[in-house]
């Protein structure tokens, strides 16, 4: 069974992003209020604005990091402009690499398949003995998405389309976005058959879906371009997000929070929604909800990535700036809230952090969480965590293809190299890269696709090699190489990344195959065309008036 390690990091990462504020409030002077209130705090974060550098290291020294800004839309968005009237929420999401793969495993692997010993198959179909693998959804839909979605309610169709066009034009002109329309869907009283007797909580709802045309790296830059460029963002190198094997960036814009809350409340009041939950969070009418007095525009932007192992046997400290590609000083917001939160694995003992000040920073060795209220610290050259711990050696997995592209019918040699970059040996190393033939029935695989090594010394490598012959053109996905090994009597699992391999069409071979397989008809047709061509050329040579004239 596939082991999940980094995925767990992302669970904590996202949950951490959500709970970070209350936790930090207990440590920092800026946010801590008399009598802590989650509602007050969240409203404060939205109205005053906040930014967060959140990072997590798993027990193999692999980092996950996310940077986000909350409630600080750039004035360039023009959220007060009439073109946003009726817009409930606009979201732009860009994902790259194995990010969605990881999220899907995170939210559903065991729950859907029932394969996990710790998680019962609560969502598996009763009639499906094998359960449903949520990863099959990603197999169908892919992993690279650059999507913009906007919802406009209670506006006539022509006005709605006009406003959407204005928004797109503004985003393109102001920030450099580029969009291609994918879907326009209008739901109103004419959409539903009259006999279903459903009363919509709105007069009309227009859903717009567009593809953002930039590749992921540019999409990340344009997303951050929408937000404030001061604070941490001024010193972060966004390349860390662009170059990671799994990353994502997103932007959520709510032109008027009150409008969104009103609509959600109308679902509940209509008795058609999950009454209670949304009201508890968002209710405004009775001033009891979590966001009862939050109105006006709200924007949230964030980008995150999963990195490669950075901590190993000799590591004793972690620089937060390194996780975000910071080269100079780290400068927080002066008027909003700047927070740094890091979660370390439980097998570490944190010895000190820098900078450290009472009520401005916090760490303990029970939760292994570290907080800095960066706004209070002001400009700092670095944020460092010193620790005692024992990570496994740095093990790298490299897979190369020769040639790197091919044509239909060609063969490529795949070489997988596992290297122990550390000084200590590892034992019982198992390498497996054998899923291609089961994924694509038309490929032929020969050679060694798995191997076991009793001991791999520090600095040593082991290699396996196999050949793949591709009958058809196409974009082939090589699943990650899986390895397991033992170090200090503990078994570790690691994997490389999904890699694509392109096989181009063989046009000549295709033509010849087509002709040969349909003989004699194709031969007759080609013969007729050829003979007429020869006849016409002869006529041209003789300069006949009724032939081709040039």
């Amino acid at each position: 069974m596939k082991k999940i390690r980094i995925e767990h990091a992302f669970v904590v990462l996202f949950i951490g992003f959500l709970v970070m504020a209350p936790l930090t409030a207990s440590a920092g002077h800026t946010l801590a209020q008399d009598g802590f209130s989650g509602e007050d705090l969240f409203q404060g974060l939205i109205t005053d604005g906040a930014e967060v550098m959140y990072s997590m290291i798993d027990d193999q020294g692999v980092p996950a990091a996310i940077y986000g800004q909350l409630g600080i839309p750039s004035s360039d968005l023009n959220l007060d402009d009439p073109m946003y009237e009726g817009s409930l929420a606009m979201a732009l999401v860009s994902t790259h690499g194995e990010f969605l793969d990881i999220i899907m495993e995170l939210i559903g692997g065991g729950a859907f398949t029932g394969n996990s010993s710790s998680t019962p198959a609560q969502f598996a179909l009763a009639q499906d003995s094998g359960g449903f693998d949520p990863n099959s959804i990603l197999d169908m839909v892919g992993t690279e998405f650059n999507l913009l979605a906007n919802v406009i309610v209670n506006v006539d169709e022509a006005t709605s389309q006009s406003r959407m066009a204005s928004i797109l034009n503004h985003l393109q002109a102001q920030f450099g976005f580029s969009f291609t329309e994918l879907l326009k869907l209008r739901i109103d009283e004419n959409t539903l058959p009259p006999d279903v007797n459903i009363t919509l909580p709105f007069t009309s709802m227009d859903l717009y879906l567009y593809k953002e045309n930039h590749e992921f790296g540019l999409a990340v830059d344009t997303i951050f371009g929408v937000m404030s460029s001061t604070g941490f963002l001024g010193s972060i190198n966004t390349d860390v997000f662009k170059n990671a094997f799994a990353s994502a960036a997103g932007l959520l814009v709510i032109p008027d929070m009150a409008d969104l809350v009103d609509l959600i409340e109308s679902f509940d009041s209509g008795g058609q929604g999950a009454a209670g939950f949304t009201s508890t969070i968002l209710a405004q009418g009775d001033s009891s909800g979590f966001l009862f007095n939050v109105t006006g525009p709200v924007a949230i932007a964030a980008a995150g990535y999963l990195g490669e192992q950075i901590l190993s046997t000799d590591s004793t400290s972690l620089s937060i700036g390194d996780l975000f590609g910071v080269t100079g000083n780290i400068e927080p917001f002066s008027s909003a809230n700047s927070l740094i939160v890091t979660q370390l694995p439980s097998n570490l003992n944190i010895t000190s952090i820098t900078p450290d000040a009472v009520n401005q920073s916090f760490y303990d060795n029970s939760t292994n969480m570290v907080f800095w209220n960066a706004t209070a610290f002001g400009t700092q050259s670095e944020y460092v965590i010193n620790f005692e711990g024992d990570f496994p050696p740095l093990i790298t997995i490299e897979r190369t293809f020769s040639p790197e592209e091919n044509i239909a019918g060609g063969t490529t040699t795949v070489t997988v190299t596992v290297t122990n970059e550390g000084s200590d040996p590892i034992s019982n190393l198992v390498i497996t890269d054998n899923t291609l033939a089961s994924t694509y029935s038309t490929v032929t695989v020969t050679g060694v696709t798995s191997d076991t090594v009793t001991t791999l010394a520090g600095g040593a490598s082991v290699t396996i090699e196999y050949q793949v012959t591709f009958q058809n053109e196409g974009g082939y996905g090589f699943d990650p190489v899986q390895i397991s090994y033992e170090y200090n009597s503990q078994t570790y699992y690691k994997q490389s990344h999904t890699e694509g391999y392109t096989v181009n069409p063989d046009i000549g071979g295709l033509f010849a195959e087509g002709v040969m397989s349909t003989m004699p008809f194709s031969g007759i047709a080609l013969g007729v065309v050829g003979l007429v061509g020869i006849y016409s050329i002869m006529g041209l040579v003789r300069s006949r008036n009724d032939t081709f004239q040039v």
Partner: protein
Amino acid sequence: MAFGSKYFGWLAALLIVLGAGWLLLPEGYNTLILWLSPQLGNYVRPTMVMVNAILVNPLNNYVMVAIWAVAGFVGGAIAGTKKGAFVVGLFTWLSALLILAFSVYQLLITGMDLGTLPPMPPGTSITDLLGIPLVQSIIGELLGLLGGFGGGGGIDMLAVLTPLLIWVITPVVVVIVTGMVGATVRPKE
């Protein structure tokens, strides 16, 4: 029998349609081809090229409209007469239909493995497919039909077939009309 000018006009127009159609295939089709070819065989690409060439929604597939227009103009100019341009345009379109049928036939008889649907190739997603003009057109029509269901009636077959008919007829109309323009611009001496 004098048909050399029509022959060369037909050949030039067909080569333009096939060559430009192959090279300027919308990105979404390329994703579809990369996705399906490993299991469905090497004739997925020719089939998609011809589907894109034959089913043309003039409202969103501007590239293919332009290709047919250029092919028609060149073919008509070579043919040199309006009558010749009509014949060239018609035969170019019929030839494209024949090649589409041939591609589909080849797709069905050569190495198609329907056992498993391969995963989307790394670096792509299903949104690429939504960018295919034909897919967008079909979605638009389906949404229109969905609205029609609101009235309580059944499926209006005419509403289903009309856009399909328009998409099929568009290339032949474009290639013949531009062919006649070409023949007018450069009449046979």
